[in-house]
């Protein structure tokens, strides 16, 4: 039948008929729920289609109608009631969204928004059932729901499994079987340490029949210093950590000690409330330690400028807005940023809330435009962060200078000798020595700047109300400590057990790290426009448990990764592929590509090149020459590091905001100019070119080939087996081995006839090929290992 024709005719007949015909049109793709829930079913429809003109923003509100608050929605204005509980037919809202006349129909055509027939039915049923409202789920304090009853109780290892399984069973589904042990230890190693397991670790686990074998692997990885690095990759994305300022000349700024603070905090399992307090307000803690001061680098991570012609006031406003955006997204998962120029369209944030939130940071000592000295000058205030060796050397300098002063005073008294030149030289040396210390931008509190509401975000408009620090009004008042709440108060509120957002937001993101997708998919927005969590009881349980545990991050991680849900195989049975293509039900594990940094780490580790040191100055791996050609003030050439620094983990890579290291960029690492709650994952030819041709991957393949030749056993087959175990923790299939043998044989013949090519190939990278190895053999095996380093398996976590 011609459904298009039927639809258009119905539209002309009128709204009532149109509405009646909808179940037929909806085609049974989705059944109307028996009980309509406002948060789950109705809020997303109203928020997306109506709130723009009938929501929190009072300045854009049309016809005085507000649909985000029940009392307003049901009240009568000019003889009309938008929502009449119990009577959808009489409700103006229903009349208007189903109106035959396009000029009368809501939402207006020009808005590019559309309520689907199914959604219309939802709205009608909801009104008929009494039009009950609920506060937005994320703004209500989470409580633990009763542990659900499930049939397959033996599958439930911890509460995570109960909440997952109850939904599976409701859909008539079974969880997937547990993954094999090799997959499990690889999964755990990548997830917790960002590194592959060694063959010995794999064997140890595979052959360990003790009941707590799995848990011991988890404990070992949680105790590994690489756990902090893995966590830091994500945290640094959120707080937009980088080594350069981002604007214009994108100059260097000292920041790496902050990065190490983050790594150390995760490794020491610092409670998240303390982690929060130190970053936002470490400078305000009494007798703050050096570490606590370093932590406040968080407040200085925004982009800054020294562009000529930029105005101080203009940029101070930009920095303030940047901090508000970031802090609200990192801790609250809120798009408070939207309220900079107007009240929020979907959530009850006002413009005033925006600027009051910004006022918490008004006491940070900073300049809008850095105008001191040359382009190489730092962006103060900074704190020096010498190594122990440097501290000792500095002390020696001070000793020497003290002695030298004594000498000078004797000279002055006796008028014999002239060692003043020596003394001055020593003093100069000390100064230069100190200037080369690692430094980190920190927060130094100062007299708070005046903060105003800026009409339409315009920094030149000084007509707005002066504001003092406060949290968003609808989230409750801020208790006061002294006259003016401080960043310490803000941190205390963020991690108060009553705060409905922080723990949920954190746990949702943690879930994403281990299951591939957030429980609510929108990691950056749990507001009205965010996705209704697929397992709300689970998310609430995790949030409450996290707070109750004393914000214990390792506890939270362990809870997730020791669940049965986590241990499932990631291979979908075919029915699941159709039923749940994005694995929201968690009837299996997810598989996903490794992060950019981890792809590098994995190749370096497998090859044997990785230098696993923790922390320190940011490092400069290979990079195409002239990549910084478009930079200026100053013009700069990239100086590739030497020696060990070439083989450090990706998390330590020098992060140039405007020109991110190309291999990291190719694998979707963000520029960190803004907060990134979730990296996009792409699959591009640039990635293939990087793994094939970037010298670090070519060098890593060759170094791996050296190990294959040295440690892989006698026969070609043994060598291939060995290489597979090192790279993929498994044995090759016959077919895989045959392919690699064929490649090896062909290249062996070719390089034998072209030894110069072999020599050139194995000469790539700073690490020299050993003299005692036949270049032809080494080159041929390098072709094999290069192939292994380019497969999908090498860059995926299953």
């Amino acid at each position: 039948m011609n459904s298009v024709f039927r639809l258009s005719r119905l539209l002309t007949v009128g709204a009532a008929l149109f509405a009646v015909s909808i179940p037929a049109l909806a085609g049974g793709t989705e059944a109307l729920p028996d009980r309509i829930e406002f948060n789950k079913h109705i809020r997303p429809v109203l928020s997306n289609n109506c709130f723009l003109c009938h929501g929190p923003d009072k300045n854009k509100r049309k016809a005085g109608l507000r649909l985000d608050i029940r009392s307003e929605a049901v009240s009568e204005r000019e003889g009309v009631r938008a929502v009449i509980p119990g009577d959808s037919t009489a409700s103006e809202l229903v009349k208007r969204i189903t109106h035959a006349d396009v000029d009368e129909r809501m939402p207006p055509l020009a808005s590019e928004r559309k309520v689907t027939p199914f959604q219309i039915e939802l709205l009608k049923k909801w009104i008929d059932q009494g039009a009950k409202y609920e506060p937005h789920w994320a703004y209500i304090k989470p409580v633990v729901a009763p542990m659900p009853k499930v049939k397959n109780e033996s599958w439930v290892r911890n509460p995570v499994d109960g909440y997952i399984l109850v939904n599976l069973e409701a859909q008539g589904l079974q969880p997937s079987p547990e993954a094999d042990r090799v997959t499990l230890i690889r999964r755990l190693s990548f997830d917790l340490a960002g590194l592959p397991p060694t063959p010995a670790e794999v064997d140890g686990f595979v052959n360990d029949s003790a009941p707590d074998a799995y848990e011991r692997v988890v404990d070992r990885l949680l105790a590994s210093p690489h756990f902090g690095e893995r966590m830091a990759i994500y945290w640094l994305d959120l707080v937009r950590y980088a080594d350069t300022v981002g604007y214009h000349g994108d100059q260097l700024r000292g920041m790496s000690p902050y990065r190490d603070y983050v790594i150390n905090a995760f490794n020491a399992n610092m409670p998240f409330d303390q982690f929060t307090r130190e970053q936002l307000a470490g400078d305000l803690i009494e007798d703050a330690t050096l570490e606590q001061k370093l932590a406040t680098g968080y407040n200085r991570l925004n982009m800054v400028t020294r562009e000529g012609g930029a105005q101080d006031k203009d940029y101070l406003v930009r920095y303030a807005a940047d901090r508000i955006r970031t802090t609200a997204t990192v801790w609250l998962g809120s798009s408070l940023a939207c309220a900079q120029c107007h009240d929020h369209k979907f959530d009850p944030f006002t413009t005033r809330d925006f600027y009051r939130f910004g006022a918490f940071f008004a006491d940070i000592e900073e300049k809008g435009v850095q105008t001191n000295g040359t382009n190489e000058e730092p962006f103060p205030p900074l704190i020096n962060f010498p190594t122990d060796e440097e501290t000792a050397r500095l002390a020696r300098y001070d000793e020497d200078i003290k002695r030298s002063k004594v000498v000078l005073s004797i000279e002055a008294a006796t008028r014999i000798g002239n060692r003043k030149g020596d003394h001055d030289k020593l003093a100069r040396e000390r100064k230069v020595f100190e200037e080369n210390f690692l430094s980190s931008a920190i927060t130094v509190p100062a007299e708070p700047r005046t903060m105003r509401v800026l009409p339409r975000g315009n920094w030149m408009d000084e007509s707005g109300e002066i504001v003092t620090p406060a949290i968003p009004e609808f989230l409750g008042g801020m208790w006061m400590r002294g006259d003016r709440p401080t960043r310490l108060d803000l941190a205390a509120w963020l991690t108060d057990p009553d705060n409905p957002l922080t723990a949920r937001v954190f746990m949702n993101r943690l879930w994403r790290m281990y299951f591939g997708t957030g429980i609510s998919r929108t990691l950056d927005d749990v507001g009205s426009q965010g996705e209704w969590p697929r397992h709300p009881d689970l998310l609430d349980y995790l949030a409450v448990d996290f707070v109750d545990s004393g914000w214990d991050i390792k506890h939270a991680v362990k809870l997730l990764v020791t669940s049965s849900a986590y241990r499932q195989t990631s291979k979908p049975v075919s029915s699941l592929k159709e039923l749940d293509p994005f694995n929201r039900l968690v009837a299996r594990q997810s598989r996903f590509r490794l992060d950019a940094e981890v792809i590098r780490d994995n190749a370096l580790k497998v090859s044997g090149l990785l230098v696993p040191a923790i922390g320190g100055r940011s490092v400069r791996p290979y990079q195409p020459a002239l990549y910084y050609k478009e930079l200026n003030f100053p013009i700069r050439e990239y100086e590739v590091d030497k020696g060990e620094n070439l083989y450090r983990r990706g998390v330590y890579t020098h992060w140039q905001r405007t020109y991110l290291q190309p291999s990291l960029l190719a694998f979707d690492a963000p520029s960190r100019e803004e907060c990134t709650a979730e990296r996009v994952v792409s699959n591009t030819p640039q990635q293939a070119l990087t793994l094939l041709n970037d010298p670090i991957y070519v060098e890593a393949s060759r170094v791996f080939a050296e190990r294959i030749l040295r440690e892989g056993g006698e026969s070609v087959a043994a060598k291939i087996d060995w290489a597979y175990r090192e790279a993929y923790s498994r044995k090759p299939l016959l077919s895989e081995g045959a392919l690699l043998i064929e490649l090896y044989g062909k290249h062996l013949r070719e390089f034998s006839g072209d030894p110069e090519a072999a020599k050139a190939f194995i000469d790539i990278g700073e690490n020299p090929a050993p003299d005692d190895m036949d270049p032809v053999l080494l080159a041929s095996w390098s072709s094999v290992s290069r192939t292994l380093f380019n497969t999908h398996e090498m860059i995926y976590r299953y």
Partner: protein
Amino acid sequence: MDPIQEYILQQTRRQFLGRATRGIGSMALASLLNPALLSAASAATAPDRWNGLFNPTHFQPKAKRIIYLYMSGGPSHLETFDYKPELRRLDGEPMPESFTKGEQIAQLQGAELRCLGSQLEFAKYGKSGQEISSVFPHISSTIADDMCIIRSMQTEQINHDPAHTFMNSGTAISGRPSMGSWLLYGLGSECENLPGFVVLTSQVGRSPQPLSSRQWHSGFLPSKFQGVKFHSSGDPIHYLSSPAGVTMDRQRDVVETVQALNGIHNDSVDDAEIATRISQYEMAFRMQTSVPDLIDIRDEPQHVRDLYGTEGPDGSFAFNCLLARRMAERGVRFIQLYHRDWDHHNDLKNFISEAAGTVDKATAALVTDLKQRGMLDDTLIIWGGEFGRTPMVQGDKGGPGRDHHIKGFSLWMAGGGVKGGITHGATDDLGYNAVENVVTIHDFHATLLHQMGIDHKKLTYRFQGRDFRLTDVSGNVVRDILA
């Protein structure tokens, strides 16, 4: 012993006995061993191509591609396309306060503001009588009647870095997609062997303003929509060349083995992403040949090379223009050429002559060449910078210059369904404010998208709970300039 023979003996004699192992491609071998691979391989040959969000587009597209000649630094409209006799009359006089009071000012903050008349002569060119200054002899004498000059542009950002970001992404906040990324997202790419969004840069003269890769970043869009920068020395694209000692044949061996291993692996994990991976490796391998072919202009006849004024990859704007035409022919969707030499705070007359001198001939050549090939009709050319320059004088080192200016500046377009030989909009008598038919950056973006067949209000992407657009919440198509 032949290593393959050795392996076979060690493992099993079952499948291999009597089989010739030479002269058979890895792919075929793997297929023999594993029939499932055939399906994975054939899945991969169906290219994993993004065909755009809108297929078909909202309107019949007038342009299939855009070549954007981006004059980085902010060319002075008053010395190029916007003649102001009144400003010349007031040369040296104080700038009337009615213009500048309460207005945002960059480097001239706090300075005494005086008028500076145009440093160059203007004349009328072409049948249409386009008013153009003497710095563009080629442009004015050959393509004036193809040009649509907009004299009423306005932007919101007065410093280079945010102004570039605003011009490219419609906002000064970082992390949003650039217009080329939006276009690729909306329309997909037309070519298999080259990226759909390419960036080229050139520079001359003094220390030019820096340029961030943010200007061609995909922001919150998937990174396959990111602009790919071509480099004038070394590999044209990062990591394009195979390692030393690895011939294309050897590279092919490796890629084919990778593909085959991926196919086998797919049997045990059943992962749709593997088919995509395989097709991306194919494209990467093809790019290793197609990109060198693209930049090798030896197949261009001498008269074409002369027309542009380039003999090969020299990093010049002229070479980039010729490359842009070659990319346009191959289906690249959005080609952006940055020329970094237009920030003339002082000695304007000399410096602008130098900058214009570097781009004049090649710009005219590009339009002429495309026209001769019948490609100007569906190629939209844009020429312009991130803002204009003040009518007020600045600097004295070597002669007067002008500061950044956002309230009125010029830009021109040609081809791609835009009327030729017209001017649109006007600034006031002193060239300060755009006063007639003001064109904002959002209007400009809306117009570009419209010419490519896209309704700018429908090109949205949800991020942080909001449907973002290139044109934010405004933007009107400038219908007056459409052919």
